[in-house]
C-alpha cells in the first residue's frame, strides 16, 4: 500500500528568480530545441501588459503558458491521442514581464479537442499561470480566441457566469511591434487586481 502524502505548501516566487533561467527560446513555442524543426500550424503572437492594483504595470512577473498543439493533442500519456502529437511542439513557454510590465509569446494556434475525462468539447485555448512576489500561490487562467463558435460550449469559458467578465479572457486582434511578420498578433492585458480584473480559476 502506498502512503498518502500532502503536497508541499506553495510560496511566492519572490523578486529574485534568476534572470539566467529565462532562455532565449523559452518564449517561442514554435520550436523545441532545434530552430530548423518548426511546429505545425498557424503562427501567432500574444502580448499584453500585466497590472497590479491601481493599474500600475507589474514588471518581474513570471508568466508560463501550456497548450495543445495545432491538432488539439498533447505529447503526454494522459492524452489518448498523444501518439498523434506534433514532435516539434512542446506546448510550454515561460517569460518574465519586462520593465514596462509587458509579456509576450510566439506560438501556434492551439486546436480544440473533446475531453476524454468529461466528454466536454474544449474550444482552442491557452492555459496561463502567473507567479510574482506577493503571490503566495500562483494565479491560473485560460485565454480564448475571438470569433470561435466553440467558445459557446467550452466548459471553462462558461464557468464564468458574467458575460462581460469572461469576455476579458478573449484575445483581441492587434497590431503589435514585437510580432513576427508571419504571425497573427493578439493582445491580452492581465489585471491582477482592480477595474477590469482578469478572472482567475481555482487552481
Amino acid at each position, binding site marked *: 500500500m502506498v502512503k498518502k502524502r500532502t503536497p508541499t505548501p506553495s510560496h511566492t516566487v519572490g523578486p529574485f528568480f534568476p534572470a539566467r*533561467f529565462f532562455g532565449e527560446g523559452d518564449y517561442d513555442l514554435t520550436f523545441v530545441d532545434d530552430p530548423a524543426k518548426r511546429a505545425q500550424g498557424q503562427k501567432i503572437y500574444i502580448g499584453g501588459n500585466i497590472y497590479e492594483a491601481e493599474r500600475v504595470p507589474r514588471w518581474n512577473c513570471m508568466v508560463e503558458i501550456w497548450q495543445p498543439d495545432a491538432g488539439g493533442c498533447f505529447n*503526454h500519456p494522459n492524452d489518448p491521442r498523444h501518439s498523434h502529437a506534433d514532435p516539434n511542439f512542446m506546448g510550454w513557454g515561460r517569460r518574465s514581464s519586462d520593465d514596462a510590465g509587458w509579456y509576450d509569446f510566439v506560438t501556434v494556434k492551439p486546436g480544440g479537442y473533446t475531453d476524454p475525462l468529461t466528454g466536454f468539447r474544449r474550444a482552442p485555448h491557452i492555459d496561463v499561470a502567473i507567479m510574482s*512576489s506577493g503571490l503566495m*500561490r500562483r494565479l491560473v487562467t485560460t485565454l480564448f480566441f475571438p470569433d470561435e463558435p466553440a467558445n459557446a460550449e467550452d466548459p471553462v469559458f462558461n464557468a464564468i457566469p458574467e458575460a462581460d467578465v469572461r469576455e476579458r479572457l478573449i484575445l483581441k486582434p492587434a497590431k503589435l511591434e514585437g510580432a513576427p511578420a508571419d504571425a497573427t498578433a493578439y493582445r491580452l492585458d492581465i489585471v491582477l487586481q482592480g477595474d477590469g480584473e482578469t478572472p482567475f480559476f481555482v487552481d
Partner: protein
Amino acid sequence: MTTPNFFEAYDEPSQPVIRIAQYRESLLRSPSRPPYKRPVTLTEITGPLNLARKLKTGMNDLSRVNNGARAMGQLIWVTGRLLDEDGMPVRGSVIELWQANAAGRYAHKADSQNPAPHDPNFLGSGRCLTDQEGRYAFLSIKPGAYPVPNHAARWWRPPHIHFSIFGEGFMSRLITQMYFPGEPLNAADLLLNAVPDEKGRERLVAKWIPMMQLERADAVGFEHDLVVRGHRATPMGF
C-alpha cells in the same frame, strides 16, 4: 516516466493564506474577487515531460562558478526526493533552485538596495533533473538571512532556498521555499507562518543529516523531500 492521471483540490490549511497584512505586495497583487471553479480537463492534467530539451540541466554545483574559486560561506549538501501524493517518485523532472549568498544578497538586479556584499564566486542558482528514485542533489553555500525593509512590518527573512518544480502536469507546478532547521528567525517569518497548519510549516523545513550518514565530510547535509499534486490511481469512469 509514469504519470499521475488525476488531481485533487489543495487541502486549504496546508497551503498559505493569500493576503498577509504586513506584506504589502500580497495586498496589491492578489485578485479582489474569489477564483472561479472550473472543471479539470486534459489541459490541466497534462504538462511538459521533456523540459530538459528547453531548460539546460546539470547545474548541481552552486559552490563555484565555472570551476573557479569556492564561494564564501558554509558548504551545504541539499538532497531529497520529488514525490507525488501516493509517495511515488517523480522521475526526470526539472528542479530549479535559487538563493542568497552567505551574506544574504542575491545576484539579481532587483536586490539593488541591499547593502550586503556580492560574492563574485557565487551565482546562487542551479537546475537539475530528478533520477529514477525521484532524487535531486545540490552542493551549495548556506544562504544568509536578509532584511525586508520596505514594509509596514520590517522583518528578517530566515535563511531559505527557493525551489521551482514542474512535476508531470500543469496542476503539479509548484513554487516553494525550503527553510533550515533550528533557525530562530523561522518563528518570526511572515511567509513561513502564512501556512496555517503546523504540519504544513514542518513540510517546508529541511532535516539535518548527521555527518556519519553523509558520504562527504566537507558539507553540512540537509534532506528535503518535495511533494507535488497528483495520483496514479484511476478515477471512476476514466
